[in-house]
């Protein structure tokens, strides 16, 4: 069965791959590339066991995340007002809650406090860029933006290394925000499927005149196309045929229900809350449950230069409720052990207040990992008393990406040469933070 969401390589892609093979590996790649490629890749790089298990790639946590939910809090989440509360001069509008896990988090996040025993809070994130676009790009791709190349998001890397995650569903989905060409230098078919409105589900998936009419029309399409397709036994046309078949399967399949939030009970919806982010988180759960490997959910409104207290009461509270519900829901369905939930943001916010809010602060910030073989109820790394510098176990964005990639079972050391000939890896050659894995 050919992967329906992966197009056979067009000539330019073939050249890219050939070039890749010529320059990096010195061998020709197996034709299965893009399908189930890891074995071929491991073999071509000379990795000992020719695969994952037992090879140099194995180890605690490797491959423990069958799926990843990446929550991107856009604008820059204040670490001090969320996961790294401080007293003294840096203290925010609210105090800290003690949790059963033994660490404190901000009073703005009472629901998350209750699930703290399932979380691994990373308080030692550090980066250099304090500009939204560039920092967002870095957090979503693990690379600084360049004018000459587009780097892939983690979902696209997964599709490259591990193949498609499901026969009918996309391998990665981007909820509440476009993926901004999340395929990077990989084929356009690796672009995360955008769901801009979680309540509306998958756009254009319902034929306006009924599936029966569609099938009658498609029968005629095949008839009209016969002579043309006979004349051109072309791999790109074959790929289009596959797309249409896959699309019709999807339109008819029960899996389309994965996109339909109406399948959820009112009680479940209420648990997540009534925000767009909450809907996104619930949809993410449905999707990973159905076989989508990587789902990004965006939340806006974190750029709290002004009225931080009020914004945390709204945006922060929505996040609190939805994230806590997501972790609880995954746990109760037995999915948390094989699903990695990441809370990410482009940077932190300054220890000192300017007016009613805080400015951008990349020097130290927090992210959170939960599930998939990650230690539960721990804090990784630390900032100083003001929340101004990292004093223990600094983690770069590249290392965070390598850690997620490791958990997801990506071969971190396998280099991919982009069409411009330059070499890339998940996390830009960074090492995973092994200490977070149980």
């Amino acid at each position: 069965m050919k992967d329906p969401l992966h197009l056979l390589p067009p000539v330019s892609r073939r050249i890219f791959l050939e070039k890749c093979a010529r320059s990096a590996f010195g061998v020709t790649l197996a034709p299965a590339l893009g399908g189930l490629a890891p074995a071929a890749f491991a073999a071509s790089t000379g990795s000992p066991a020719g695969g994952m298990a037992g090879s140099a790639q194995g180890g605690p946590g490797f491959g423990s995340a069958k799926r990843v939910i990446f929550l991107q809090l856009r604008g820059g989440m204040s670490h001090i007002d969320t996961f790294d509360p401080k007293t003294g001069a840096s203290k925010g509008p609210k105090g800290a809650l003690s949790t059963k896990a033994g660490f404190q988090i901000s009073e703005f996040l009472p629901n998350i406090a209750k699930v703290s025993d399932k979380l691994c809070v990373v308080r030692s994130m550090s980066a250099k860029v304090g500009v939204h676009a560039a920092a967002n790009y870095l957090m979503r791709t693990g690379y600084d933006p360049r004018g000459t190349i587009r780097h892939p998001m983690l979902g696209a890397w997964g599709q490259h290394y591990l193949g498609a995650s499901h026969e009918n569903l996309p391998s990665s989905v981007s909820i509440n925000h476009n993926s901004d060409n999340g395929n990077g230098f990989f084929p356009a078919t690796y672009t995360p499927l955008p769901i801009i409105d979680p309540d509306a589900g998958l756009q254009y998936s319902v034929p306006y005149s009924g599936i029966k009419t569609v099938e009658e029309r498609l029968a005629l399409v095949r008839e009209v196309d016969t002579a043309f397709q006979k004349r051109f036994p072309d791999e790109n046309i074959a790929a289009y045929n596959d797309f249409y078949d896959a699309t019709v399967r999807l339109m008819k399949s029960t899996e389309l229900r994965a996109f339909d939030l109406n399948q959820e009970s009112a009680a479940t919806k209420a648990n997540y809350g009534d925000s767009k982010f909450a809907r996104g988180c619930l949809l993410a759960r449905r999707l990973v449950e159905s076989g989508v490997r990587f789902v990004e959910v965006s939340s806006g409104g974190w750029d709290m230069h002004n009225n931080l207290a009020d914004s945390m009461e709204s945006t922060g509270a929505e996040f609190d409720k939805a994230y806590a519900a997501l972790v609880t829901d995954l746990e109760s369905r037995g999915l948390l052990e094989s699903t990695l939930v990441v809370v990410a943001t482009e940077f932190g916010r300054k220890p000192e207040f300017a007016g009613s809010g805080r400015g951008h602060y990349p020097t130290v910030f927090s992210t959170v990992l939960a599930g998939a073989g990650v230690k539960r109820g721990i804090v990784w790394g630390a900032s100083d008393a003001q929340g101004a510098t990292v004093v223990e176990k600094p983690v770069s964005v590249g290392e965070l990406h390598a850690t997620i990639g490791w958990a997801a079972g990506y071969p971190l050391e396998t280099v991919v040469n982009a069409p411009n000939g330059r070499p890339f890896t998940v996390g830009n050659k960074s090492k995973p933070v092994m200490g977070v894995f149980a």
Partner: protein
Amino acid sequence: MLAALGFSSLALVAAKPGSKRESKDAAAESKPVFRPTRPTTTEHVWSDAAGRTIKAELLSVDGVHIVVRDAEGKSYRLNLTKLVPADTAFVRAAEPLLESVPVPLKESASRVDALVSAGLQKAGTTRNAAAAEDQFVRRLYLDIAGRIPTASELSAHLADQTPDKRERLIDTLLGSTGYNSQLFDWLADMLRLKDDLSKGVKSFVYQEWVKEQIAANRHWDTLVYELMTAEGRISANGAVGYLLRDRGMPLDNLSNTLTTFLGANVACAQCHDHPMANWTQRNFYEMASFFGATEQGYGKGKINQITKGGALDKSTVVTLLGHNLARVETLPANKLVFPKDYKYDDAKPGQRVTPKLITWTKEDANTKAYSGDLGGDPAKLRDQFAVWLTHPDNPRFAVAIANRLWKKFFGLGVQEPIGDLDDPKASSNPELLAHLAAEMKRVHFDLKAFQRIILNTQAYQAQASPTPKADAAPYAFPGPLLRRMSADQVWDSVLTLAVGPEVDRFKLRRADEVRKLDIDKDRITEADLLAKVEELKAAGQTVRMRGGKKKKGAEVRSDEFEGEPPPTFEGLTLARASELAQPARESHFLRNFGQSDRDIADTNSTEGGVPQALMMMNGEVQKAVSSPGSMVMKEAGRFSNEEEQVQFLYLSFLGRAPSAEELAATRAVLEKGLKLKDLGWVLLNTREFIFVQ
């Protein structure tokens, strides 16, 4: 042949060394005025050592002798060594403007065919049979005018019995407004044209400038030269858009410049020596040094200063000042230094970089492209670079654009990838590529003239071939490759069905919105801004850009079009891709079908996917085409009997009549209850519709 093109080695040797100049002195001078040196005419005042002058047009160059003609039509043969040095410099610079040896079209096309045939013979294969007339016309419309032909355009051509009808159709289409749209889309991907520069500044004047160059068929060398050397405010001079686009990342800009215009892949050397090719990081910085005295400025501080406690609100100040501060200008000194992490022995971090041109072979430096003045004068740096870049003797400039245009029509470059021509072994037919480069120079970079040659070859007019298998030998061009339409071709073709050929007519005009903001001053004060606001108010206008925030779903506003605005359908503006937002919003049909995001060059994609199929089957576009209001459906309705209606729709969508079997099958389906609009859906969703044969 290879050696002649400078491909035989990648050794980098020094070009003519530039004379040293104290940067301190340069800094002490007043602000330099940048003056491009490339002449636009061959008219010149010639002077000899005795001070005698003659105003005359340069006709030809023959060694040290030149032939000139004065206003009365009298010709003179002059010895350059007897004239002042500036005259020699002028001759060198003006040479590209001289008339070329004319070659009849048929002959130039058949020379290309002979080289393609030689390549085919070497590969043990032959050229495909000539494409059928209807296939050929559809391909020609798509490749030149960017859209499918209407049924009546196609029928008119098929009915024409004259033997030279293909040649005439090529000329007609090259002269059409559709051509301008199509070439704009092609260049927009290459040049990464996008509406938003940064800080709210719009690139509308730049886009309009590009459109004007296309409409005037400005030669490629002149166009590129102007992009490199443009100076001034974006509100007054659109050509600065190329450099302004990459404000804050001049090294990335240079990397793109070298890749796009020369096919030199130097991305690696930006940060370290190229691991495989011979590019060093030093080479890269020496090239970047030509832009070391170029400033792409916005002046954020000034905006804050004026906003604070001023009489104008911030958004007015940002818009007004932003478009006047966004400019390219030349600084008194070359600021470029080697980077902090420079790790090679040949220079120290922080050391100033002396500009130096790259070469591919030792012989390159002896050519005229390298003979320009390379003194370190900051005011001349960009000009020196641009003269070299666009010189006919530049080892790569002609071949890079010739190879790109070849790819546009054949689906594959003679050498791939088009952005990296550093490996001469990658050329599938070196002799052909060298000839195409020579032809490009012979026609003086006239892109239309060059395309005319390619389009008239039997190679182009042959039947298409399927995509070669991954392990196949290099493609020898038995015909063009079967291609999926580009995103803009699909969109523009769909509009042709929904709106008719009038769709070529709608022209977006947004540059005026920026131009009206122009304040012709070097230092702008709050008083200037207030005066401008008053001036606009008096004219009944506002500072707010019409291209600013739009209603969700709208690409551009209807009042941004010249004359009659285009129709809309369920939130879609039915104007050609070139006349919509650049790029279209990410959820738009165009982006779904592969329009580039315009951040990375050459990233238009023709790959398919499930979201495309969903959109084609259930989206607004198929509704627009099959609704009763669509042009093609209305016209079909004029025929009284069903058979004619069916035939008309086949002709409109697929560019051919239905076979007897197809006609029977279609009528059977219609009998069972499907309607004509369903047939529109069916034809739109065939592979035959979306692939160009």
